[in-house]
């Protein structure tokens, strides 16, 4: 029995599924799960999905269950902690007066573009999160706010699912941090089956709204991660995404960003660092749909040992988007005999009067740069780590606050074969 048949069977065995969940099941039945025959899924780890023993979400953790240690709180942020997909933080939070919780079904129904991405596009894995998320969370943010979402798991045998929709009101400025910590390495034996982590995040930015979003996937252990993100921006909306994939196991992120309003802007800084036999696969689609929109995408990935890294970056400038600007830079570094990096930049232009620049390069460490550093007396390992750190540097630049940047740097540093010198970290 295929993974799809099993997960739908488990879903239907639940009592009285309804609303958006039922529609999600129907969409999965109609359109199926992605396969590696699809270009945007060629390098994703989908085979592992077939090995998932049980799709139903983990039962609520028993009292006294040991949780992974949580990182220090970020000053000024409202923290929401999800354990196995269950929101364990009391709501509402006293420091989140600008944030209102709404019914999820209404949020799903009100965003047709995201629904299309989830049903017929690359967002289909997000539907699994919708089927099983125990605590879907739909928020409306009316004014300045900083929100930190922490995801931890306690079980290697069951799924962890999260579905979150955030609507940002006109002119609101929001900082959003999303950290996937996985399971504490000490709580799972090495032979534990891969845990399944699926999240689906929908973002809607109204006119003049600004969002600075950091997504840090640093889960330890043998975990499967499938994260889906869709965002739509209104007039002059501004979205900055820092995406760091630096966990063990395998990670697939699918994102679609629609620049629907005039002069809307998205800036993506994505970084992947994978070692051993880890897999980090990212797919970003940016749709320029309105005049004067701008996108600026940068991806840096280092694959060590036998790791595989891929990034598919698809930018489409549609007929209604004259005066748009597109920047796209993808670079990958292969740092192991069995390592692999696949980059696929795509730029489709269906209008006149645009400025676009894009490039993609994959290779090994530049021998000329290495020799230059050696000729100054640096040890080979120090020289290599310095060059790798420099290679990733641009992608860290977008991360704030400094404590979060340091966490991202440490997570990435742990996935490199030559650890950077301490003084290079923030």
């Amino acid at each position, binding site marked *: 029995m295929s993974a799809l048949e099993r997960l739908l069977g488990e879903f239907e065995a639940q009592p009285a599924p309804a609303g958006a969940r039922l529609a999600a099941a129907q969409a999965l039945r109609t359109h199926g799960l992605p396969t590696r025959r699809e270009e945007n899924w060629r390098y994703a780890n989908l085979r592992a999905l077939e090995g998932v023993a049980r799709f139903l979400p983990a039962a609520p953790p028993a009292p006294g269950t040991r949780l992974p240690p949580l990182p220090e709180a970020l000053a000024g942020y409202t923290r929401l902690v999800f354990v196995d997909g269950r929101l364990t933080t009391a709501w509402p939070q006293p420091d989140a007066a600008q944030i209102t919780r709404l019914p999820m079904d209404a949020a799903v129904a009100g965003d047709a573009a995201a629904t299309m991405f989830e049903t017929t596009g690359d967002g289909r894995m997000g539907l699994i999160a919708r089927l099983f998320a125990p605590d879907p969370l739909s928020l409306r943010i009316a004014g300045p706010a900083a929100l930190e979402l922490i995801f931890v798991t306690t079980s290697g045998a069951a799924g962890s699912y999260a579905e979150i929709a955030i609507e940002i009101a006109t002119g609101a400025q929001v900082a959003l941090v999303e950290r996937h910590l996985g399971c504490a390495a000490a709580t799972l034996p090495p032979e534990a089956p891969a845990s399944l982590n699926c999240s689906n995040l929908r973002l809607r930015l109204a006119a003049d709204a600004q969002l600075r979003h950091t997504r840090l996937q640093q889960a330890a252990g043998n975990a499967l991660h499938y994260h889906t993100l869709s965002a739509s921006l209104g007039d002059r909306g501004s979205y900055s995404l820092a995406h760091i994939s630096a966990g063990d196991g395998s990670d697939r992120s699918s994102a679609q960003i629609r620049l629907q309003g005039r002069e809307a802007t998205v800036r993506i800084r994505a970084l992947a660092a994978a070692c051993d036999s880890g897999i980090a696969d990212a797919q970003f689609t940016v749709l320029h749909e309105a005049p004067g929109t701008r996108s600026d995408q940068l991806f840096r990935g280092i694959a060590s040992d036998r790791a595989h890294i891929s990034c598919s970056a698809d930018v489409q400038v549609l007929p209604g988007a004259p005066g748009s600007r597109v920047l796209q830079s993808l670079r990958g570094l292969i740092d192991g005999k069995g390592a692999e990096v696949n980059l696929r930049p795509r730029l489709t232009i269906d209008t006149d009067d645009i400025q676009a620049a894009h490039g993609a390069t994959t290779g090994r460490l*530049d*021998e*000329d*740069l290495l*020799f*230059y*550093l*050696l*000729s*100054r*007396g*640096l*040890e*080979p390992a*120090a*020289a290599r780590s*310095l*060059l790798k*750190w*420099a*290679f990733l*540097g*641009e992608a860290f630049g977008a991360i704030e606050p400094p404590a979060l940047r340091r966490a991202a740097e440490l997570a990435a540093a742990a996935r490199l074969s030559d650890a950077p*010198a301490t*003084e*290079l970290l923030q």
Partner: protein
Amino acid sequence: MNAPLLQIDDLRVSVAGTAVLHGVSLTVRAGEVHAIMGPNGSGKSTLAHVLAGRPGYTITGGAVRFDGTDLLAMAPEERARAGLFLGFQYPVEIAGVNNAYLLKAALNARRRQRGEAEIDAFDFLNMVRAKMRVMQIDEALLTRGVNEGFSGGEKKRNEILQMLVLEPRLAVLDETDSGLDIDALKVVGRGINTLRSPDRAVALVTHYQRLLDHVVPDQVHVLARGRIVRSGDRELALELERRGYDWLLEAAAAVA
């Protein structure tokens, strides 16, 4: 007479199966400045890079001793820490590695080699700033990526700055004068002269004698077709300026 700091005996080198150096012999003593001149393709840069340990060259014969030690048996970083500095003809740009970090890391690597403690951050900055003033380099370049976005002249001055910070025993400067305007040439010349001392030596690899107006060499050698075909004093450089290299190439061909 000082003991040889660099002793090259019958050095033979090939690149991708093609012989480039056909038996170079050269002795450089502490306190001396040697100019190695020659036409394009004569093997000057090959010699400089082989001394620094660049991969890609095959040593097919001969020996090189640096301060009494077998240089060719040392890794590039060991050569650097032992006090050999290569000034690159085309310094690379390393985005994301700032100048100050590299300078400090390189200096501390040398200090560790000598059994000294790492330099204090405050002392380091004071020392580097003083040397930047000598080289007329804007302090803002310290926090920029190594040579990132630098002009050609800035890159060359930055090479000499690195040399001044590292205080090597032997500096091999590969066409440091190429691409420099008259003023920058003076600054670079001043920087090189700052390093001159009785216990250090400099090997200047150059096409032209104009740098030698500012850094007066003790000896001038002409490398042609992979061999040193003539050695002399500064007068030889002036003669090359007047007559070009052809007369020496003809003489070398006659010997070969």
